[in-house]
């Protein structure tokens, strides 16, 4: 507990508590904004390279300023509120969605010495707070007074609520092995090389080998679930461009659309970060104590998370979209039994080691 508060105590010694709180809160926001620029650029470039194009090339060297340009474009666009829309809810929805993603960032341990909030039930908190996005989507979809938005919102809610169950199963599995819900503790347990990561059975010596298939399957289940929770292809049915025009954010433009956009990319980072923490050792270096100082830990954490963000982008430009009932089939009849079996195995592992 003290470790996480290290920075907070350090700042509040010199400034007031409120200022320290604000400063601590700004760090994840800055991280999120910078990350969003990088992720948008990465998405554009990876998509283009896969499709044998060059992507943005004109704004700056190799189009490096393209995401910045897009942000400015979105900022100066007209902010339209449709006439028939429910104005208070319509205007509130993007911020609620963004809130969910931003609040989830507050418990991510970037390094062994810094997490914005060292909550000891961090994983549980993330599961809970991600349900906020559901409400934001319903709010936006319903308030838009557009049938496409409404259908998109309905799909999104049923999708996210259903996929929370296998996701919770995966997190539970790791939690039962780690005997903790504290993300920093879970990361610390996996120190000492990639062999100790929970995707490879956790820190338990050679006898854990029988566990590896289960943990790997569990990781795949969580990865699939994370795609669904962030509404990414192949599970982007709520947006479903070819069916629902743009789904729940059909009517949004300008700044409010930018918030939806930001929240989507933010959520991608959050689920990737969770994946990193519970399966890939969080901030710990893959090579034991090599390069494992607190500053390097930030690098490892972000590098691992960005790898999964890249994987999500890669998948998006490869796969077609599933249908909404197939999505439910996948969740309830494939992912849930698989995660259940793996959870039992991991719980057994947790008892043994």
């Amino acid at each position, binding site marked *: 507990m003290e470790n996480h508060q290290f920075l907070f105590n350090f700042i509040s010694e010199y400034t007031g508590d409120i200022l320290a709180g604000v400063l601590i809160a700004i760090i994840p926001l800055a991280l999120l904004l910078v990350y969003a620029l990088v992720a948008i650029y990465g998405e554009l470039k990876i998509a283009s390279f*896969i499709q044998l194009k060059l992507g943005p090339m004109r704004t700056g060297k190799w189009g490096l300023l393209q995401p910045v340009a897009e942000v400015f474009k979105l900022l100066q666009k007209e902010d339209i509120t449709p006439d028939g829309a429910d104005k208070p809810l319509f205007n509130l929805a993007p911020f609620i969605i963004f809130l969910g993603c931003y609040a989830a960032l507050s418990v991510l341990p970037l390094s062994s010495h810094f997490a914005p909030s060292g909550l000891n039930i961090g994983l549980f908190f993330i599961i809970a707070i991600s349900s906020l996005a559901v409400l934001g989507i319903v709010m936006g979809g319903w308030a838009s007074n557009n049938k496409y938005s409404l259908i998109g919102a309905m799909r999104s809610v049923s999708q996210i609520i259903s996929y929370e169950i296998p996701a919770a199963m995966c997190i539970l599995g790791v939690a039962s092995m780690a005997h903790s819900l504290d993300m920093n503790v879970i990361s610390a347990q996996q120190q000492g090389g990639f062999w100790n990561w929970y995707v490879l059975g956790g820190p338990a010596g050679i006898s854990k080998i029988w566990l590896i298939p289960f943990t790997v399957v569990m990781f795949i289940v969580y990865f699939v679930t994370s795609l669904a929770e962030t509404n990414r292809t192949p599970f982007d049915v709520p947006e479903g461009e070819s069916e629902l025009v743009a789904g729940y954010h059909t009517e949004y433009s300008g700044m409010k659309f930018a918030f939806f956009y930001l929240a989507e990319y933010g959520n991608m980072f959050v689920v990737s970060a969770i994946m990193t923490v519970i399966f890939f050792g969080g901030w710990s270096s893959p090579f034991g104590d090599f390069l494992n100082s607190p500053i390097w830990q930030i690098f490892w954490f972000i590098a691992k998370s960005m790898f999964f963000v890249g994987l999500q982008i890669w998948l998006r430009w490869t796969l077609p979209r599933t249908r909404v009932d197939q999505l439910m089939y996948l969740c309830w009849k494939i992912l849930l039994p698989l995660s259940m079996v793996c959870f039992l195995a991991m719980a057994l592992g947790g008892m043994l080691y």
Partner: protein
Amino acid sequence: MINYLKNIIKGFSTILVGMKVTFINLFRPNVTVQYPNVHPLVRAGSDKMPDNARNKLNVIIPKCTGCKSCEKACPVNCITIETTKVASIDTEKPLMEDGKKRVFWLSQFDIDFAKCCFCGLCTIACPTSAIVHSTDFEYSCYDRNELLVHFSPFNKEQVAEKKRILAEEVKQKAEKALADKQAAEKAAQEQNITDSKIKSSDDQTSANQNIQNNSN
């Protein structure tokens, strides 16, 4: 149960195969070109725009006889041609490109590229291949009126001047015809009447036609 697991594995493996394909393509060279930097006309090899590409029409005025067959062939009526006869008293006596005598001035030769459908029927219809497709495809503009291209070598004053010359000639001819007629009448009083009467009336109708053309 076995089927169930088989299906899962099959689905998973086909996704991996798809990912492999996109991963290979990630490292292939791009096939697009940066258009204004690399122009299709100067691109190398088979990517180059062919010479017979049907883009903006071009009219080679020295070749054009003013026969209006392109105007007739056009399915969308985007060509407007107006000709003025070359007056015999005109000091300017131009020749066609092949050395023949010019019969018509092209007082108006307009092509409306907003209407043009680039079918190429006008170029086929043209007997002297005066109207041809060029490879110029960049002619977008802010004002629609700029798409109406005037190919006629004359401006309004020059056209008016040419018409004036023609009218003068017609007038001269008419006077001459009148003088002839009077002379003929005089002669007719003396000689046989019928033949010359028909002739003079013919002259008059043709003169009238010319005047009508000019007033158009």
